Each structure stands twice: as C-alpha cells, then as structure tokens.
C-alpha cells in the first residue's frame, strides 16, 4: 500500500542480499536489499518501517487466552478461605519471548461503600509475602486477598500452590508485576553464520509454534469483623511479545 506521501511495508525487509521465501509454506517471495539501499530509501521517503520479528517469521499471530473473566469467590465466611482460578494461555509462533503482567485496580472493595479486604501479607513473620516474593499462605487466621501461580513460565518463587503474593494496587500507582514470562526463542531455527554483518540472518529451519499455559488462583480470607457486603475488583492482565 503506498502513495506519494507514505508507503507501508510489512514482512521482512532489509535483511541482506538475495531472495527470501517463507520457509513454512512458500507463500511469499521478497527481494531484500542491503543496508545502503535502506539508507537510500530513508532519504527518499523519510522513513523505514519493519513489522514483525526480523529473525523469525510465522503465520501464527501472538494470542492471549483467558478461560473466564469472572472469578466468583462465593460467599466469604470468616476464617474460611475461598479461591477461584483463571487459566491463562499465550500462543506464539514468532519469537517466543513474551511477558504477562497483572495488577488490581484496587483491593476487593464493597460495591456500595468503602469497606475493603486488603491485600494479603500471607502467613506473616518470616512468611510475609510481597509484590515480588510469594510466601506460604496456609494460616486460616491470616486475612486478605492475593493470588498464586502454577504452570509454565511462572515466577520461581511460586514454589507450590500454597504460595501467594498480593496484587499490585493501581490506586497506589504500584507497577504491574510479571506473572508469566518466557525468554525462549522458538526452537528448530538454525541461522546461517553472520559474516559479514547482516541485519537479520537467513533462516534454514522451521520455527515451531508454541502455547504456554498457567493458572492464576485468587484467594480471599476474611475475619469475623469484616463488614457484610458484596466485594469486587478488576484484575488487569497484559500480554505482550517482548521487544
């Protein structure tokens, strides 16, 4: 797509001399150019745009899945923890590196008023959890709201399903925390050696598509003096390929 004022380029460009073919299904052919030609293009158009990861291509888009958007914690009873879970899945056929972060808009807050269930500190003492460190939360007298992670690509401090962290609180401008992360480049991709320097090596393998799955379990426990009411909050998940 182009006009006198702009040109949109997609796919792999500026990747060294020669033709490139989609290694998966031969669906496109690109004649690529060397760096000097890119410089020429920049001078004539005023821009150069590259879309996608230049070192691996695949027709599979980056996809984020949540099994459900409501976690019903049921009727909360004092000293009787309640849990609910969401399955998260990230599919990528591209570079494979991705991050999923999470943050709560606020603590569990009574929808009609200002009462809230604060975020958990887990069992407390030596087992006090933080935004970045999960600890055991097994004490029925330890109150609050938090989450645990199990499955692929979850932080290593979630040692078991009894380990929890509090959510970051958007009201306090706390940054979202990483709950899933993979830094693996998709396997089966074998580049040619880079002599001399080329912006992206030619591929001789076929990238493998991959789906990674984890479960986030939300837990709430209240004391006997917690005011009655219906409590709710919004948890915001963000999935993005790494840059």
């Amino acid at each position: 797509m182009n006009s006198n004022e702009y040109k949109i380029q997609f796919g792999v460009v500026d990747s060294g001399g020669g033709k490139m073919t989609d290694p998966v299904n031969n669906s496109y052919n690109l004649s690529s150019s060397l760096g000097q030609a890119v410089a020429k293009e920049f001078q004539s158009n005023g821009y150069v745009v590259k879309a996608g990861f230049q070192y691996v291509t695949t027709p599979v888009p980056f996809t984020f899945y949540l099994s459900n958007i409501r976690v019903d914690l049921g009727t909360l009873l004092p000293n009787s923890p309640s849990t609910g879970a969401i399955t998260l899945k990230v599919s990528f056929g591209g570079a494979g590196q991705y991050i999923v972060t999470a943050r709560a808009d606020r603590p569990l807050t009574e929808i009609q008023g200002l009462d809230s269930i604060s975020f958990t500190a887990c069992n407390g003492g030596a087992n006090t959890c933080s935004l970045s460190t999960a600890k055991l939360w097994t004490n029925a007298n330890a109150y609050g709201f938090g989450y645990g992670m199990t499955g692929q690509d979850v932080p290593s401090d979630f040692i078991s399903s009894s380990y929890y962290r509090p959510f970051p609180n958007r009201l306090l401008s706390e940054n979202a925390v990483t709950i899933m992360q993979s830094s693996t480049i998709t396997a089966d991709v074998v580049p040619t050696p880079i002599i001399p320097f080329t912006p992206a090596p030619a591929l001789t393998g076929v990238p493998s598509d991959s789906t990674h799955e984890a479960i986030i379990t939300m837990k709430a426990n209240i004391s006997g003096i917690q005011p009655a009411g219906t409590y709710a909050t919004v948890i915001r998940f963000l999935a993005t390929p790494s840059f």
Partner: protein
Amino acid sequence: MKYNNKQKKMQFNSRFILSSVIFLLSSVFFLLSSPPSYAQQVNLSLNPPIVSAKIKPGKSIVIAYTAANWGDPLNLQFLIRPFIPVGQLGSLSLLPQLEGPVQFSLENTDILLEKPFFFPAKEKKQAVVRITLPPGIPDGDYYYLVLAETIPAFSVAGQSTGVASASIGSPLLISVTDSGITEVKATIAEFSFKPAYEFTIGNSIVRIVDSAKELPIVCSVRNMGKHLIQPQGTITDQIGSMKKSYSIIPQNILSNSQRIIKTYSQEDTSKSASTLVLSNLSLGTHKVTAEVIFAENTQMQSKSISFLALPIRLITVTIVALMIVTLFFVTRLLQRRRTKT
C-alpha cells in the same frame, strides 16, 4: 350411542396420554441436549507483534494493526501507551498516560482510540494508526505499546468477585533521526559464569567447573546511545582445536538500557537468566569468546573468559571411596597387630 361415547372417551384418553408422553420425552431430550453454559472466555490476537520504524521529523506514517477475537463476544478498545524497559530480560513497564511529542490517531471512521466498541466472536478488526512526528522533534527513541483491551463487565450478583480485563499489546519502537544515521554507543557490560572453584596462582586466576554439570554463561550488552541497536555476532567455546559457535539472536536493545542477549541454542534457557548453557563439557581448558557487532560499519567488540573443566563429582566420589577403603584396611591392620600382641 352410549357405546360410541365410551369409544370417543377412550380415544380422547389415549390421545391425551400419547401427547403427554411425547411432551415429557421431548422435554427430557431438550434438557439433556441443551449445551452447557460456559463462563465468558477471552481469546485475542494482535498482529503485527512488533513494529520498529525509523522516521524523519515532520513525517507521518500509517500502520495497520489487526485484532482477532477467537473467543466470546466482548467490548474492546484500542489504546496506545508509552513504556520503558525494565530489568535485563526484556520486561517493560507501561506508563499511565499517553504523553510526549509523537502524535497518534486512528484513520478508521468507525472506531476511535480509547472508545469501546462491540467485538463479535470470530471476527477481525483493523485499527489503522497514523503516527505523526512534529517538525523539530529531538532525535532519539520513543517507545509505545499499541493495546487492544477488553472492557470489564460488572454484574455482581451477591457474590464477591474478581473481574478480569485482558489486554494484548504490540511494541512500537520509533527511532527519530533527521539524517538517517542512528547513534550507536554500546558495550559488552557483562560476560561471566559462576565457577565451582576459583583460586589465584601467582598472577592468574584459575576457575574450575564441573564437566558433568550445566554451565550457564551470561552476556549482557549495555546501550548508552539515543537509539536502539540489534547486536549480532557469535559466542564460541574453544578447547584445543575444537570449536563450537553459537549465533547471537539480533534482539532489540533499547536506548539507555541493558539486556542479556540470547543465542540460537538447543539448550533451553527460558528458565534461566543466561545467554547460553554449556553442557557435557570436554575435560580441559575452555576459552569462551563473545564477538559482537552493534551496527553495520562499527567495530566488533570481543570479550573472553576461560575455565578448566574437570570431573569434580567423579573425583570427589573417587577420593571418598579411596578414603573409606584406606580407613578400612588401616583399621584391620591395627586390629591384627593388637591381636598378635
């Protein structure tokens, strides 16, 4: 006559019974065959997964992003937020507001930025984003995430609830340069590993690793320039005349940040913050060299580390076994001498 009335009555009763049975059977069949109800699922994709652009001040470009809804119908909005890199593993932190000199708008006639719209299941929606750089914008990099975000629906019915909102993002990396030349100012900040033992002999440090164990190597690059770079090169493990090379993946290292680089390797480094994991090490002295080029027409930077790979576990087990055997024989010898005397 009486007989006819009785007959009619019987016919009516049998028809009534038959209708009732058919109705009951239909009801049971309907109940059994009703599809089970599922909680609302979110299954979104966004393409392209990343865009990097080099643009002159005063220019404007258009990029089309396609969101696809593979799950249930939902309300969605497109928004753009700046981000900053965090840590050395490619993490990022979103800033709360869209600010800065770069201007964004949607060319679409049916949707606006930060305005929710209904997104039916199994459909795609293209957001045509116009990116405008004002004249005189300073040279440098500006980083954004283009987001497709679901709008949480609050319908609490007497139960405490956590409601999820899902966003999927695509990094947009804008390098502003008037001349077309981007600043390259980078260095290999770290090239190291954790030895099992380390000691000094004279002026040299000897590092010993267990040849039976995996050895993670960390190589990180610091970018001190105004623009992102994509370092390339190799990491080579040499012992004697044997060499094994691993190509560095040309990932983006953003301006004023440091990142652990990755190599094309069959070893799984996803769980470790390492560049490369060496395993099944040959016995002897290894020299591992990183040769990195940060951009075309720049000088290659090189750093080396060396270590001695020994079968430490095997040696330890052997020594312990020898000690036990020696102790056994010494004890027996002493016992015999006592018996003689």
